[in-house]
């Protein structure tokens, strides 16, 4: 375990050093700057050595800098997709291309998806063109929003429910979306567990079973942590989880690793908040369609929430209170929210900006919506010192837009990740170009 951890940390460090651009200084001028925490009506952003060197309304363009004139446009932080499958899934229905779920009998919490990330995924450039520059990639579980759940495509198939071996789906990872051979920013950044209907299902069919089992597992993790030597000698009573799972859960039980809990109805949220408080857990709520009903309690607990603001249908009995006002109401109560994309934020991660726009249309202040897809997700996952907003010293994840980035009619004109300019291309655009052209030879001979 320790060896694995060291390896992964080394990989992450390597990723950072290679992505730190050595390139020249870039000044993006004359744009409306969304910093993630505020707006500069007409400002300049200077990028140097992969970081934001300066930002403001009266920043001088350094000598020798490459200048990008963003007049009439918007300079925004790269967006951070949360609850995402980017880099972990290629084609949703093809199990072989999905590295976000596993059904081993001896592994749940220890599942570390960072080993399965694919920097060459078709999904990454597509999301990037939607302004996404970072993602928190999560393991799938029976209650997750990942994967396509379209009636037509699941019809008659036996795989209706996703098998999960335990209460924990595994550990999430942070990635960036820059071109290259390594996209990992930080592995094992959070643990993921389903509650509500899905969690109850995993635990045997009832919420009361899950909460009880969950507490018992935490007790065993603590017992194990305090008696590792005895465990190794075979002198500890039988424990429910494998050694790998127990190890993985120690930082969760000690409140050092955030636990993303997918939970929906108000009563479940309240129970989860109580559980976290009593057990000393550092939790993040995911889903929380009825969060607005207990918004004050969530705010008082200082617990952040990942939401899809489009959820407004009673698609199950546990989301009967779903409303498009959820984002606005949670924000008004003082809850830190991050806004998700659609369908597990893989192929449709690019819709994150539209979801933020819809939250604005339903009462969320504009700057709060921008924060909910930039600085808030970075902060929720403890990465705010590294990226998320346009401020001096932060990683230069910057996107220049033709206009308001929350509007579908706006498009990016330049994308930087850690100061490195990214191509405005994708396989989808290559397909477009191939079939938009007419040549005597068949399309296979074009571009």
């Amino acid at each position: 375990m320790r060896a694995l951890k060291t390896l992964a940390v080394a990989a992450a460090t390597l990723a950072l050093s290679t992505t730190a651009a050595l390139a020249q200084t870039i000044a993006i001028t004359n744009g409306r700057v969304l910093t993630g925490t505020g707006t500069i009506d007409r400002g300049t952003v200077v990028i140097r050595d992969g970081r934001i060197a300066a930002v403001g309304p009266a920043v001088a363009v350094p000598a020798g800098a490459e200048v990008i004139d963003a007049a009439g446009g918007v300079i925004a932080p790269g967006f951070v997709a949360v609850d995402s499958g980017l880099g972990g899934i290629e084609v949703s229905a093809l199990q072989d291309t999905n590295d976000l779920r596993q059904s081993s009998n001896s592994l749940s919490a220890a599942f570390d998806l960072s080993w399965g990330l694919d920097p060459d995924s078709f999904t990454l450039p597509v999301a990037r063109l939607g302004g996404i520059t970072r993602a928190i990639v999560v393991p799938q579980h029976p209650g997750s929003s990942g994967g396509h759940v379209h009636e037509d495509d699941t019809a008659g198939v036996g795989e209706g429910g996703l098998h999960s071996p335990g209460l924990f789906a595994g550990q999430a990872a942070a990635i960036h979306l820059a071109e290259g051979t390594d996209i990992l920013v930080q592995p094992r950044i959070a643990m993921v567990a389903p509650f509500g209907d899905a969690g109850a299902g995993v635990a045997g069919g009832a919420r009361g079973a899950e909460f009880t089992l969950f507490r018992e597992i935490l007790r065993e993790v603590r017992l194990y942590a305090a008696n590792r030597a005895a465990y190794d000698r075979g002198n500890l009573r039988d424990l429910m989880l494998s050694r790998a799972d127990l190890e993985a859960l120690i930082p969760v039980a000690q409140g050092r690793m955030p636990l993303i809990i997918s939970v929906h109805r108000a009563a479940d949220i309240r129970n989860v908040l109580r559980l976290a408080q009593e057990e000393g857990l550092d939790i993040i709520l995911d889903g929380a369609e009825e969060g607005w009903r207990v918004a004050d309690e969530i705010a008082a607990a200082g617990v952040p929430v990942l939401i899809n603001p489009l959820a407004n249908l009673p698609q199950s009995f546990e989301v009967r209170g779903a409303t498009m006002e959820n984002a606005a109401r949670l924000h008004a109560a003082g809850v830190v929210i991050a806004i998700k994309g659609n369908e597990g934020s893989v192929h449709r991660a690019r819709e994150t900006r539209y979801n933020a726009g819809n939250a604005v249309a339903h009462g969320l202040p504009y700057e709060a919506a921008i924060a909910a897809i930039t600085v808030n997700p970075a902060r929720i996952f403890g990465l705010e010192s590294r990226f998320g907003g346009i401020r001096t010293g932060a990683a230069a994840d910057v996107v220049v837009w033709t206009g308001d980035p929350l509007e579908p009619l706006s498009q990016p004109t330049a994308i930087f990740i850690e100061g490195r300019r990214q191509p405005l291309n994708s396989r989808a655009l290559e397909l477009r170009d191939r079939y938009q052209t007419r040549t005597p030879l068949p399309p296979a001979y074009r571009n």
Partner: protein
Amino acid sequence: MRRLIVAATAVVMALSGCATTGGPASPGNSSQTTNSDLLPGLRGLQDPYPSTYRPLPAEDLAIVGGTILTGTGQRIDNGVVVLVGGRVAAIGGPDTPIPAGARRMDATGRFVTPGIIDAHSHLGVYPSPSVQATSDGNEATNPNTGQVWSEHSVWPQDPGFNRAREGGVTTLQILPGSANLFGGRSVTLRNVPSVSMQGMKFPEAPYGLKMACGENPSRVYGGRNQSPATGMGNMAGYRAAWIEAQNYRRRWEAYEAGGGAGDPPTRDLRLETLAGVLSGDILVQNHCYRADEMMLMIDLAREFGYRITTFHHASESYKIADVLAAEGICSATWAGWWGFKMESLDGIEENAALLEAAGACTVIHSDDETLTQRLNQEAAAALSAGRRAGLNISEEVAIRWITLNAARAIGVDDQTGSLEVGKRADVVIWSANPFSIYARVDQVFIDGARVHDRFDPTYQARSDFELGQPGQENH
């Protein structure tokens, strides 16, 4: 190309078509005349689940001062739309006369469009809540279930109908799923609250036959060690079914030619539906993602003498846009959906814009209870991608993807889909340009009746299921 179907139910016409002519039925003007030609034993069976739809109470109305996207490709600034007796009575610029007695509604600073039409919906057949008890969209028991009608699965209390209406959707085609080669008949609904399906049923709309290409049928049946298990199995299945349908049609023709002597052929619900396609009365609504498979389906249609009205999903239509334009086949597609299965891997945001540029019938559909609430935004994403590709498409053209073209795709474009004099007064008033993410639907009219008003709880419908639940006041 498209047959105009007026005041006749598809079943009547299907039977009359096979009972009286060898070729496709001529465009019918009245169900009454064909009805009288029918065989005594079939009289009264032709429209067994008739529409009971009646427009909600309406007042004559003049919507003035807004920017109108007409659905015919025009844009009228500071326009006037007059709704009288549930129909569009006048449309034009600020000088358009307003009849005495018509109430004026100010739309200054707002946008006015035809009612949004979702050509591909499963509301009611896959309702919310999504539970096994009401998961009624796929009769996945045989590769050919032409005998099932989606209208018999519609649960009118699906809260999704209300959310869709709040997003401007006034007409929707409810399709069976795509597990089967022939999934059954679709039904087209007016999006009004009703206790019964019949109370929503679009009186003049033709039926559709849901056909499915590709991965779904071969996966579902191949997984059971049945045919079809492959693409070629799919094709063999369609062909065998059309041969059966042709034989069925001939049996009825022979019986008719004999003056009705002897026992009539036994009715077969499955083959009635397919025969209705052969006679041109039932429109083929063909789920098909890949360009190569669409090309096969076009040949298949030619082999058996029917036409395909619309390819649904049609992720690769852009690869054969010129063919689809020449064939007059609509493509109902998305902007943002791709990669969820192998056959959708090549789906691109520019699909609609490339089809539009080729002169093909272009439709943005939802196939989804959430997306149906924001078809305007999906059209905006498709438009934006087109502009990025250098295609200069206006908003007044792009609005047709979710209005008039969608109406054409389901055979109701003579009734709705555009703001033209004489058409049904299906109208949406938007708070802003509907291609903006911030636009909200303020008011919705169906046949001139206000069926939704964002500012007036009197016009905010809730289904029975929504009673007694938290948070109903805001969706």
